[in-house]
């Protein structure tokens, strides 16, 4: 596996997309004291924009010839890879504008947030399609969409929640509860994908002739561990949102974040094993 750059890219972007959507969702739930609201949202939005930029920047490491990178838009409309890059660009631009407005105008624009999130969803679609149209066994499958959207919905909410935590102390219990619910959805999405994936009889379209299943044999341990960690993250979230007696321990939130990051990272690692 040598696709570390892509791993970072394809986790950071969906996480940012999921994060911003989560923020948008929460913005509807959070009380509307304007100034305070902008204050709460400012930092999370900036960080998410940064996360997206880091993701894109990470992708540059994948390129052998980054100086030619600008050429990557030439294929827009023909190559899903180009589409992905262009739409990522748009997403980042919108994320930056949203964050910028929050800083400069001290105002949060939920419509812009939603728009950014929706563009992000399209971006994830492009991202996933870029893989599904390849000849790589295991990518060339609907599951790829579930993997990428799964990341957005499982990792995004906890990213959003963790970012809200420092600035939005009071309503955190609610935030955590929603993050928990969304994570369940995110994980459910991934499980559906896996169920479909396991049922499919692959047609080998590359001359190396290796099926995804064979490639993954040495990684079965890793896949197991990944699920343990992911479920542990989920359990932690459940605990945080259901245990109303004790004071919320923020360390737990960040621990859950780390768990999800690790789990999704491992999931993506295994994903890229298929292409190596």
């Amino acid at each position, binding site marked *: 596996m*040598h696709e*570390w*750059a892509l791993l*970072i890219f394809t986790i950071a972007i969906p996480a940012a997309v999921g994060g911003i959507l989560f923020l948008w969702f929460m913005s509807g739930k959070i009380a509307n004291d304007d100034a305070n609201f902008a204050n709460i949202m400012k930092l999370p939005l900036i960080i998410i924009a940064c996360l997206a930029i880091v993701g894109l920047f*990470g992708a540059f*490491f994948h390129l052998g010839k980054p100086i030619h990178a600008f050429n990557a838009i030439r294929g827009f409309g023909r190559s899903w890879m180009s589409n992905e890059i262009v739409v990522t660009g748009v997403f980042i631009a919108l994320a930056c504008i949203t964050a910028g407005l929050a800083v400069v105008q001290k105002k949060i624009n939920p419509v812009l947030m939603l728009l950014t999130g929706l563009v992000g969803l399209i971006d994830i679609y492009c991202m996933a399609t870029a893989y599904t149209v390849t000849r790589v066994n295991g990518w060339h499958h609907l599951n790829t969409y579930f993997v990428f959207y799964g990341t957005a919905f499982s990792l995004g909410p906890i990213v959003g929640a963790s970012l809200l935590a420092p600035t939005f102390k009071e309503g955190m219990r609610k935030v955590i509860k929603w993050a928990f619910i969304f994570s369940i959805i995110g994980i459910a999405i991934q499980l559906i994908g896996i169920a479909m994936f396991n049922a499919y009889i692959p047609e080998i379209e590359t001359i190396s002739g290796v099926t995804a299943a064979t490639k993954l044999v040495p990684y079965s341990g890793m896949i197991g561990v990944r699920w343990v960690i992911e479920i542990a993250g989920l359990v932690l979230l459940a605990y945080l949102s259901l245990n109303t007696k004790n004071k919320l321990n923020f360390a737990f939130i960040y621990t859950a974040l780390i768990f999800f990051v690790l789990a999704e990272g491992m999931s993506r690692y295994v994903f890229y094993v298929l292409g190596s």
Partner: protein
Amino acid sequence: MMDLINKLKDFKLTRRSFIGWTSAAAATLAVPTSRGLVAKAEANIGVKEANGEGVWKTAACWHNCGSRCLNKVLVKDGVVIRQKTDDTHPDSPDFPQQRGCLRGRSQRHQVFNADRLKYPMKRKHWQPGGGKKELRGKDQWVRISWDEAIEHIASETKRIAKKYGNEAIWVTGGGEIGKAMSTIGGYTASTGTISWGAWLYTYEMLGVGEGLYVQGINDRIDLRNSQLIVLWGANPAWSTMGSATYNYLQAKKAGARFITIDPLYTDSANVFGAEWVPIRPGTDHALALGIMHTLLEEDDPVTNPLVKWDFLNKYTIGFDADHMPAGVDKKENFKDYLLGTYDQQPKTAEWAAEICGVKASTIRYLAREIGGTERVALLTGWAPARINNGEGWVQAFSTLGMMTGHMGSSGNMTGVSCWEYAGNNGPALLTPGSAGLPDIPNEITNVINENQIFDAVLKGKFLQKGEGERKVNIQFIYHNYNAVLQTRSNIMRGIEAHRKVEFVVTNAYALTTTAKYSDIVLPVTTEWERPGTVKAGNREILIAWSKIIDPLYESKSDQQIAKLLIKKFGKNPDEVYPIDEKQQFFNQLAGSQVVKENGKDFEPLVTITAKDIQEWGVKGTPQKGRIGLKEFLDAGIYQIPRKKGDNLGFIAYKDFIDDPVKNPVSSESGKFEIYCKAMNETSKKAFTEIAPIPKYEPKAEGYESTFADWKKKKKGKYPFQVFNPHYLRRSHSTFDNVPQLREAWPNPVYLSRADAKEKGIQTGDTVLLSNEYGKTLRPALVVETLMPGTIALPHGAWVDLDEKDEVDRAGADNMLVGFVPTGLGTSGYNTARCNIEKWNGTPLEEDYKWEQRIIKF
């Protein structure tokens, strides 16, 4: 994340390895602009670069690979930038280009490999007399000057010769160092049947051809007249790369059917569409007997004439009681042996089946096919004879050809098809001239059989063939131009022997195994760095290669080294080398001969003018030949076109068949000897006695020995037979250090699916092969194409022992081949046995990733 950082570093890394790779050449050269391997090159004398695109020069491919092909290199701005092969004439099956193989085309990677030895060096703890001898193979290397090196070698030579006598000096492979030693009293020599196996010491006595000195099969154009071609342990696709397989293919296209008798289903068999008869190594003798018994059993001169009685009666002795030589027991005839008249054991198909693993019904089928087909080519490689107790096989195989009369006529042949003459026997149509160096006689008469050589070093005695036991006290081993510690049996014993003696020296261009276990290593030039040579290959070609580059680093040729030594010995090098290497090359060119139109007589090949001689600065006389000197050197090859019906064809033994009295064969009786008294007599003064007729005997370390109890069929400690196909990634051990060849042809051991399954081994698993001689590792390749119970361990990997001197991780074949001198002293590489198990230690990585043996000072 660390990979991200690595990625940043990566660019630099690749740069560095790139520089490392080419730096071999850096000493002499202009800076490379591309990744091309580069070195300062010379143009042929008289050759000029025409249009700035570089000059193509014929470059040596000098290895003992069983072929000879045309290899050219593109030299531009003094740099070797590309290679190519024969394009000197349009290609056709009758007149094929002499296309090289993947090794030849990796030649520049060998010459410029990062592991080229640069300077003379000595072992750090070496002292005159030895100095921590146990560190041989492990010690560090210290760079020394040529003066120092020659001084050490000369003084140690003198000291050892004085103290123990010249017998104490063992020079492997003779060569130039042999000559040098001969100037001061000689050296102990070693010899073996190496390639030929049991053919080498028997063929003359039997009256047959061994496939190189005496040609035993027809030429390639006549091969197309065969209806059935039996490849009995021969795989030209691997072991005669170049044109042989393509030539064979023409016979297939002309309608021949193929049968292959081999433990391995080979690529030759595959493209020829051969029926595969899997057989256990070293048991072909039994199969041949089973076939011959069936022939006798089913033969009916009228209704089913399988045996050619006329042939037997007229051309052979010993087949039956009526055709025995005078003065021997008539009961000892071959027919009665086959029928079991006196030993009560008929050598039936069933009897043979138990030994060789070929079903009795198949044996009968083979008999009917071979006996019942009009024109048959029975072709064997040397491999089935590279076995212990192999002499009887040679005789049995030949007898089968005689019995079925497949000898001496068009489309009919029985004999060896191997090495450079595979599938194409006949007298050479071109011959190189002699270099013109005097013979330097060796006063010491010791010739140690290679099956005994390391034992002789360790135990101080050996069997001098034809004479009896002799004592010897070897204290100095000098290796030049061979890889004895790799290619002779029992590497572990060899290492022990190397660590016992007082002094070991090797001339080498890479840190080969022999070099690794030496005290002093002298860097030699490759053929690319020498004036040139004329080389024969198959009978239709002569190749002339010339110097490509100046010697790399401080390397010197073997001759230069010999001269320095002779001088240091206080002798006159000019007596051994009265002419220089360039003059030697010129002499070879001038003396090269080519067959005349009439197909019989010869004339000079090369036209040489007074101007040529002057330009070359050599001595010589102008002569008229077929082709101008420059023309020949530019082409690098002269090839005789062939076509069906030309007068250059060859039918082996035809003279003898036409007139056996006037043209007797080489045996004592002048006939083919199925009863061979001479062989029996000679064997009495060799290692083990051989019957005068091809009586089956279990081969030492053969199939039977894999059983603890043969009768009850209880397997023993070493239940698998292991044999060594010659492998396409290397020529013996040569080329094994070239990473791109390692990549193209990995280094597995072939296991049959059945055995692998039983042992729970899968392709890619590292497995340990072991027996009483050694332990060695290789990744497994599980195949359907191998006879169960046998293991194919491709020949020639560079032994690489662990720190404890126990396990070799390269899978060197001779870790498992023991010392069992049998018969006349045959090298029995293909009779070995071992156990195999999954390796629990660190698994092996693909060896193209291994570190090269690069010595940094």
